[in-house]
């Protein structure tokens, strides 16, 4: 019996110890992995890292980079290749990439706060300005020349929006706390071949032109427009933005009296889509499309247009095939509204250098390397849009580039209708029913007024 008791005690102790080792459930498994990686290589970081690049002294050290990508994604693979090329260029350096995935928006702040070693990171837009304290001001860095950029500076090489958009997304206008890459825009993406067949010669710029284009597409046998439940509020919100401006839409979303929803502008918006639904311009399945069913219809050639991101071609590339040509146009102006030809919702992914980074010179070099022509080409290959002024565009998107270049005013997605998370589900549901022809424009307004008052 005594032996049994000792054995039992031993087992209990083992259980207790194993429970203790796995108890920190909050810290992601990545942290233990990261620790083992950084222990392998002791960083030879020079604490007084001068920002000036010294060609005589070879670059060395380690950078820990937290990214929002997963290593299995094409973009993740591209990143790894870019890091490998950097390490080949500078043999004494090590770039350790932490593949956080989209969860970075939850894990980054606690990690930074707890003092975990992070030198560079993809700044998640969800944090807005909250991480400013942890970021280095890169204003000087983007102006200095780098060898990997052929003597140019980062600000010479990247699109101006790559410096502007991060300021807006982080709500930090003083200083440059992040540099953007992989810019995206919300545009009407369309099947260029379908447009040609239907005899549409120029991109629609007004709602009436869009109406005419849809009629031609219908005749040619295509379904003009579709959308998924996930992005229904984008195509809807943008009409309101075109009609009354983004600030008005934000107020509308926040309205709790129902007064603003009674505005004739809302009725006009509802009637416009009721009209489109009646004419058959909206796919019969919009009532029940679950993402990505709708966008797959575009890729397969059934539907001609979809108001979505410039990243749409990559997402449906499997269904669309290599010969699919894309076109794009900005959300058209609507009757009664101002002209917004140069305004569209836009954003980008951003990289920042941590204020606790010890090897700033190395981080700066890597940041510049990311924006070099070679790296940019590799990113474009994996499906990302280019951040470089001289960057190449995938063949399928050549027609999209001129539209991209025209945009200079950045809006919020959905024209601002997303700003109130309470009203958004009701708005989306009612809009879907309106577009599917189940409720009338008047009923839509009624429902929204009632919902706003709750």
């Amino acid at each position, binding site marked *: 019996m*005594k032996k049994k*008791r000792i054995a*039992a*005690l031993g087992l*209990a*102790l083992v*259980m*207790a110890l194993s*429970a203790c080792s796995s*108890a920190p*459930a909050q810290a992601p498994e990545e942290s233990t992995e990261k620790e083992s990686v950084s222990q392998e290589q002791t960083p030879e970081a020079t604490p007084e890292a001068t920002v000036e690049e010294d060609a005589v002294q070879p670059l060395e050290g380690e950078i820990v980079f937290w990214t929002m990508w997963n290593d299995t994604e094409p973009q993740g693979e591209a990143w790894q290749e870019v890091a490998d090329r950097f390490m080949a260029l500078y043999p004494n350096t090590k770039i350790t990439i932490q593949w956080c995935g989209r969860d970075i*928006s*939850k894990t980054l*702040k*606690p990690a930074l*706060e707890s003092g975990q070693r992070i030198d560079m990171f993809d700044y998640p*837009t*969800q*944090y*807005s300005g*909250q991480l400013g304290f942890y970021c280095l001001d890169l204003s000087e860095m983007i102006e200095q020349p780098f060898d990997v950029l052929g003597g140019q500076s980062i600000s010479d090489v990247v699109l101006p929006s790559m410096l502007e958009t991060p300021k807006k*997304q982080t709500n930090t206008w003083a200083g440059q706390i992040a540099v953007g890459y992989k810019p995206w825009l*919300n545009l009407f993406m369309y099947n260029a071949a379908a447009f040609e067949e239907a005899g549409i010669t120029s991109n629609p710029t007004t709602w009436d032109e869009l109406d005419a284009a849809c009629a031609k597409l219908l005749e040619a046998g295509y379904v003009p427009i579709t959308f*998924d*439940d*996930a*992005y229904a*509020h*984008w195509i809807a919100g943008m009409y309101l933005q075109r009609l009354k401006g983004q600030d008005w839409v934000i107020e509308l979303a926040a309205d709790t009296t129902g007064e603003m929803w009674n505005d004739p502008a809302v009725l006009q918006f509802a009637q416009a889509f009721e009209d489109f639904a009646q004419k058959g311009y909206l796919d019969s*399945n919009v*009532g*029940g*499309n*679950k*993402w990505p*069913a709708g966008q797959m219809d575009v890729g397969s050639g059934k539907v001609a247009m979809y108001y979505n991101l410039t990243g749409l071609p990559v997402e449906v590339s499997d269904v669309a095939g290599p010969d699919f040509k894309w076109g794009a146009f900005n959300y058209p102006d609507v009757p009664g509204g101002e002209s917004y030809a140069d305004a569209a*919702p*836009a*954003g980008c992914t951003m990289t920042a250098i941590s204020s606790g980074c010890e090897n700033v010179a190395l981080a700066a070099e890597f940041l510049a390397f990311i924006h070099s022509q070679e790296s940019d080409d590799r990113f474009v290959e994996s499906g990302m849009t280019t951040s470089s002024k001289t960057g190449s565009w995938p063949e399928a998107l050549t027609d999209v580039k001129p539209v991209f270049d025209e945009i200079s005013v950045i809006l*919020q*997605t*959905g024209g*601002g209708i*997303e*700003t109130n*998370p*309470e009203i*958004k*589900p*009701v708005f*989306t*549901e009612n809009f*879907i*029913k309106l577009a*599917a022809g189940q409720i009338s424009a008047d009923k839509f307004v009624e429902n929204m007024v009632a*919902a706003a008052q*709750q």
Partner: protein
Amino acid sequence: MKRKGRGLFYVSFLTPAILCFLFIFLYPTIRTMLMSLFQVEFITDDMDSWVFVGFDNFKQLFNSALFIRSMTNILKIWIVWGIIIMVLATLLSVIITSGVKFKNFWRSLIYLPHIISVVALGTMWTQYAFNNQYGLFKTIFELFGLETMAAFQWTAPENLFLAMMIAYAYGSVGFYVLILVAGIDSISTDYYEAADIEGAGNLGKFFYITLPLLKDIFKRCIVLYSAGAMGFFAYSTLFSFNTELATVTPMVYMYDNVFGRATGNAATPLNVGAGAAVGVLIMIMVLFINVFLDKLIPNDRDERPRKKSTVRRGRNVH
């Protein structure tokens, strides 16, 4: 000597469990309850950055139409679909234990959906089974010529809840079938034989023998189902990309408030205090359900014959 050994024995087994309970259950619970009375910006913020707001978070919840809708949804899930799933599970388990061939095979088949990852199941349902162009239901209904049924939009907002619950029932009924089958199997066959001699039919046997003797197990199934239903989250997020009225549940609402669900470039404001308040409310609901169930179905250990424990016999023999 024996008593000392016993004491050490108890302590060494209890300590890990108590430590786990304190750090993994009690501490977070107390912290969440505190959080619900404050305005907190981010979930890992230090306590000194919290701003005391009293019951404002709770007031905000009850003023939110979305939250109220999530509560009605969860009540439907718990009560209406709880009954449906339990009845279905009972039916299946009675059929399986009524002497059909390949009983083990059927049992495994029915349990299989429960093992498969919820994400995989959810994707199958939304992208294939319910699809309105080439989906499973559409093809089968068309095959039988049921045109109106084939045109039924399963994933439209008004039908989405039904679609989600069908998928949920499919994935969870197996678990309860397993428990109930084990329960029915443990009922001594003497009762059924006696009933046969008395001339009772199948229905009589079911209502007068099976059901009463399964009372304890039913109660446990209901408790398990309630706990699972209160935490209903995965299916909601799979059936809805953004939060939708049809599928919102308190957990989804809490997630949105604590972590945000930004699509595009608009960052919605986080309110971790409100999220914590939702957590507190869920906890109160679960406690209430447990008390309610205890009163509704009291334990009746005395009546139910138990198989004698063989361990005791072993010790006495020594």
